[in-house]
C-alpha cells in the first residue's frame, strides 16, 4: 500500500495551541515570539518553548525552565525525580497525584507547572521530618492503609488536607471528603481508621 504523507496537519497546530495559551499570565510576555516561531517552523528551538519558573518544593527553592504545557505532576515525576507523587489517570479523577500547594490539597495533574509560580509545593517526599515520619504516614502503616501502595502518597496528602479543612470529624465525614482518592486495592476502611486516629490524636498536621 502506498503511504501518503500530508504536510499540513488538519486537526490541530502548535500555533493554535500557543495562541490559546496567551491567556496565561505566565506566557504573556513570551507569547508573541513563540507564536511567530511556531508560524515559521514546527520544530522550534526548545529555548523558545520554555519559560522560567520558580517554585519552592519541599522547602527548597527551585529555579526551573519548563514548557508551559508541562503539568505540575509531570514536572515533579519526569524532570525533578520526585516520583513519590503518582499518576493514576492524568485527568483529575483518581487523586493519586495529590500534593499540597501553599498548604492546600490539589490534583497536580490538573495544574500546569507554570500556574504555580512562586508557590510552595509539598509532596510525599517532603512530609517526614528527617527520619521522623509525619503522624499520617505512621498511622497509614499502623492501620495498613494500603496494599500495593500506589495511591498511598495521594491518600496521605489528601488525608492531611481533609483534617486541615475540618472535614474529618466522623468516619462518615472522612468517607465523603476522601472520595476523590481512589484505592483499587480497597484499603478504604483502614485509611478511614488511620485518619480518625490522627484526627483524634490532636497532633498538628
Amino acid at each position, binding site marked *: *500500500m502506498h*503511504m501518503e*504523507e*500530508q*504536510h499540513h496537519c*488538519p*486537526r*490541530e497546530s*502548535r500555533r493554535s495551541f500557543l495562541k490559546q495559551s496567551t491567556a496565561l499570565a505566565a506566557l504573556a510576555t513570551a507569547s508573541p515570539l513563540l507564536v511567530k516561531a511556531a508560524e515559521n517552523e*514546527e*520544530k*522550534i528551538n*526548545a529555548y523558545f518553548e520554555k519559560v522560567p519558573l520558580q517554585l519552592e518544593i519541599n522547602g527548597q527553592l527551585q529555579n526551573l525552565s519548563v*514548557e508551559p504545557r*508541562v503539568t505540575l505532576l*509531570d514536572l515533579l*515525576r*519526569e524532570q525533578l525525580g*520526585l*516520583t*513519590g*507523587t*503518582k*499518576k*493514576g*489517570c*492524568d485527568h483529575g*479523577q*483518581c487523586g493519586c497525584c495529590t500534593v499540597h500547594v501553599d498548604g492546600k490539597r490539589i490534583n497536580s495533574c490538573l495544574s500546569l507547572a507554570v500556574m504555580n509560580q512562586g508557590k510552595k509545593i509539598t*509532596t*510525599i*517526599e517532603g512530609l*517526614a521530618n528527617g527520619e521522623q*515520619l509525619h503522624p499520617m*504516614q505512621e498511622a*497509614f*502503616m499502623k492501620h*495498613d492503609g*494500603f*496494599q*500495593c*501502595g*500506589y*495511591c*498511598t*502518597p495521594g491518600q496521605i496528602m489528601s488525608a492531611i488536607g481533609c483534617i486541615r479543612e475540618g472535614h474529618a470529624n466522623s468516619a462518615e465525614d*472522612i*468517607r465523603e471528603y476522601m*472520595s*476523590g*482518592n*481512589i484505592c*483499587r*486495592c*480497597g*484499603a*478504604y*476502611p*483502614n485509611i*478511614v481508621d488511620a485518619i480518625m486516629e490522627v484526627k483524634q490524636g490532636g497532633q498538628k498536621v
Partner: protein
Amino acid sequence: MDKNNLYNIPPFADDDRVDGLAKVTGKAKFTAEHQLPGLVYGVFVCSTIAKGVIKNMYLAAAKNAAGVIDIIYYLNCPAVPGYKPADRTKNPNARDYTGHKVFFNNLVLSNGQPIALVVADTFERAVHAASLVRVEYDKEVPETDFEKNKFNGKLLKNRGEFLRNEKDAWKNAAVKLEQEYTIPIETHNPMEMHATTAVWEGDNKLTVYDKSQGPKGVQGELARMFELEEKNVKVITEFVGGAFGSGLRSWPHVHAAVIAARKLKRPVKLTLNREQMFTMVGYRPYSWQKIGIGASKEGKLYGITHQAVSNTSVYEDFAEGIVNVSQFLYDCPNVNTDYKILPLHINTPTWMRGPGPASGCFGLESALDELSYQLNIDPIELRIINNAEVHPQSKLPWTTKYLKECYALGREKIGWSNRPSVPGSLKEDGMLVGYGMAVGVFGAGRGGATAKGILKQDGSLLLQSAVSDMGPGTSTAMVKIGSEQMGLDDNKVRFELGDTDFPSGPTQGGSGSATTVGTAVMAVCDALKQSLKEMAIENIAAFKNLKPEDISYENGKLVAATDASAAIHFTDLLKQSSKPELQVSKTSTGFAQRDKYVANSFSVHFVKLHVHPVTGVIKLKHIVSVADAGKIISEKTARSQMVGGAVGGIGMAMTEETLMDHRYGRYINSNFVDYHVPVHADVPPVDVLFVNKPDNIISPTGAKGIGEIALVGVAPAITNAVYNATGKRIRQLPVTPDQLIG
C-alpha cells in the same frame, strides 16, 4: 466464649508491612519511575475503529513536531521473530504466538488497538505528536454486541461440556427454578497504569522494567519473541501498583517498548494512559449464564444445569471456568454444564480477580438464594443441608474444608437473626433493611519455586525469589515464614523480589504465592539449618564427634542434644568458621497429591444494607467476610486482602460496567469518572474473620490462599441482600437504583 472469636484468633498484632515505609514515604519505585540516562518517551496512537484495514497514515505533522525521534508503525516496524508461525520441526509442542501482534500488519481487530508508537524526547512532546497522526481506514462492520450474539458461541475442545448422571434432572424436582444471569465487562483498572521501560545493551542483551505479576513469565516471553537467551533478558518488577490479573501476561505495549528501544538504540519508556487501560491489558469478559436448579421439599438438591457464554477476541480464545462451581460446590447427584466462548471485535479478555468462580458464583449463589425462598428454608440452612463432605464427582476428600465453621462465625457477626424472613418487611430509619449471604470458592494448591537464603554474620537473613508482589504482601508473609523458621526477629529478615536475577519464582496469581514461595522459603531455612550443623561439626570442638541429627537448632542457636552446654549462635559459628555468610538455594516442587485430595479455599460473605424505598438508592451498612484460607501467616495483610476483596465485590455488584457504543465498537466510559470503581463513600465497615486452621496437606506453610475468595461471592451476597430488602431479584449486574424502583 467470645462468639466473635470462636477459634481463639489472636488479636491483630503490630505486624506492619515490610515495604510499608517505602510506600508511605514515596520511596517505593514503581515501573515508570526508574530514571535512566538518555530515556525517551513512547506514546501510542490507537485505532478509532473496531474492524477494518488501515488505508493511510498521515505522519508528516507528527514527524515535524518538536522533539519527535521516530514513529513506528506496521510499515517500518522491525520484524518480531516470535510472531512467525512456530517451527515445530525442532519442538513439536511449539505454539504460535496468539496474542495481538503489535505493528504486524494493517488489520484492525479491535477499537483502541495500538497502531503506531510516537517516540519523542519528552512525554509532552510525544503526547502532542501522537495527537497529530491522522489515519484513514477501510472500515468494516464490527461485531461487538454480546447480547445480540450470545447464542452463537463456540464450544472449546475437551472442556466445554460436563455431565454427572442425568442431564437436566432439575426439571423433575419438586421445587425448581430456571433463571438467567448477566455480568458486563469489568476492567481491572489498577491505580498504576501499565508501563514498560526497555533498555538494550547491544543486540543481544535486554533489560525491561515492567508492571507484571510474573517477571519470569515476561523474561520467557521476551526471550521467545526476540530470539534471545533467557539469561540475557533481565526483568525488574520491584513494586507493582495493583494488577488484579492484568499483569498475568505480557501485552502489546511490552513488545512495542522493546521494539522501539532496539530500533532507536536508547531506553524507551511506554506508559499506557487510563483509556488504553481499557483496551490493551484485558478485562473480565462479558458473561451470560443460565441456571436450572431443583430440590426436594426438604431442600436436598436434585439437579443443576449450568450454562455459560463469555466473550473473547476474534484473534485469540480466552476461556475461564464459569460453570465449574456448580460441579462441586454442593452435593448434588445430577449436574450438567456447558460453556462456550463468543469471539467479538474487542481485545482479548484475561483473568480478573477470582476468574471463573467470581462470575459462576454470582449465578449459582443467586439461584440458591432464590430457591431458599421458594423452599421457605433459611439460605444458610439450605447450604448446610447440601454441604459436600467429599467432592461430588471424584469422591475425593478435601485437604481441609471448614465451610460450616465460616457460616457459624459470620452469621453471629452480621446479626443474621435480625434478618426478615419476608422480603421488604423490615425498616430502619425509613429505609428498607436487607441481609444477604453467599459462598465463595477458589482452587488452592502449590506450584514449584526456587528461593535463595543468605545468612550473615550480623544475624540477618536475606531471602530472594523472582516473584512479584502486586499488593497482597508477599514480602511480608515470606519474612514471617523466614523469621519463624530461623527463630529471628522479623526485622532481621528481608525478602527481595521483582528481579529475574533471583532464583525462579512463580507468577503471582490464583492465590498461590504464599503456599508456593513459602514452601521454597521453608526448604531454604531447613537447608540453612542443616549446613550450620555440618559447619559446627567441622569447625567447633564441642560438636566435633556429633552427627547433624544430634544437634538441634533453637532460636538461632545450635545446641548438642546430649550436652546443652555445647551451644553456639550461628553468628558466632560463622565468625569462628571464617565464613562471612552462608548461602543456599532450594527448589520446592508442586502439590503432588491431586490424586488423593481436592484443594480449595472457601469464603462466606455476609451483607447488611439499606435501600431507600422511593429512590432505590442502596446504602451498604456492614460487610462480614469469613475465610477458610488455612493458616493465616500475616494477619494484618491477610485482613487487608479480605477487605480489598469485599471492596472489589462492591464494585462488581453495584458500580462497575464497561459500556460500549456498538455502532462504533468503542467504549464510552473508559475513565474513572464514567467507569465507577468504589470510592471511600461506597464502603461500609468491613469485618474479617478467619477460621485460621492450617492445611498441612497442600503445603508445610499451612496456608491455602486468600486473594480470590476475598472477592468471589461478595456480589451475590449483596444482590441477595437487595432481594431481602426489596423483594426484587437482581440477575443483571451491576444493581442500580433504577432496577429497584417502580
